[in-house]
């Protein structure tokens, strides 16, 4: 993995069309500005992970299984 140190307002170029600018640094947070072509999809990594979780959450669940879950939860309380 390439690691580069940057200061505020400095930037990084990826390929010919993508620029990542460090626009603000405060405490443990960094604000970045990204210039990229419209067809480049940019999302926060945690959103991709949450999307994958959600897709795995959509499954068939019979009422019998739901009943077993309810009993399990009641037992815990």
């Amino acid at each position, binding site marked *: 993995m390439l690691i580069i140190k940057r200061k505020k307002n400095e930037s990084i170029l990826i390929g010919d069309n993508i620029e990542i600018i460090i626009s603000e640094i405060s405490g443990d947070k960094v604000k970045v500005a990204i210039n990229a072509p419209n067809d480049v999809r940019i999302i926060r990594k945690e959103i991709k992970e949450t999307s994958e979780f959600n897709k795995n959450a959509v499954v068939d669940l019979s009422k019998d299984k739901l009943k077993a879950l309810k009993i399990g*939860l009641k037992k815990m309380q």
Partner: protein
Amino acid sequence: MKITSREFGEFEIKDEDVIKFNRPIFGFEDKDSFVILKDSPEDDIMYLQSIDDENLHFIIVDPYAILPKYEPQLSSDDIEVLKIKKSEISDLRYMLIAIITENIENSVVNLKNPIVINSKNKQAIQAMLENEDYIMRYPLFSNDKAGASSC
């Protein structure tokens, strides 16, 4: 309004029961209207049923049935999307999306990204909480009743 669910069949719902997502559930960008279905009013485990797609539902769980000390911290971005004032935070209700596994003992719930519903106007989002210790795969049947501090 009449809707159809694979598990519950066809039934009538009131307009005010419809939950509208101001920002869709992550990964389900084309679905914004859902309704909560449960077998009996005191159930802590429910279906979040899509109104547009009878085959789409999530299993959701009341977080306080699992973690009585659940204390979600919403980001300012999420508060903005929900269009609420800080004073209205007490109107919000939280639900956790569950992955129910073949062996139900291994089922997990997502503490980090609860469904947040404004109980006054039924506007909702799936949040990206600020709480750093809330994990995405927390065991549904956990023996740790003390809170999420040790997760």
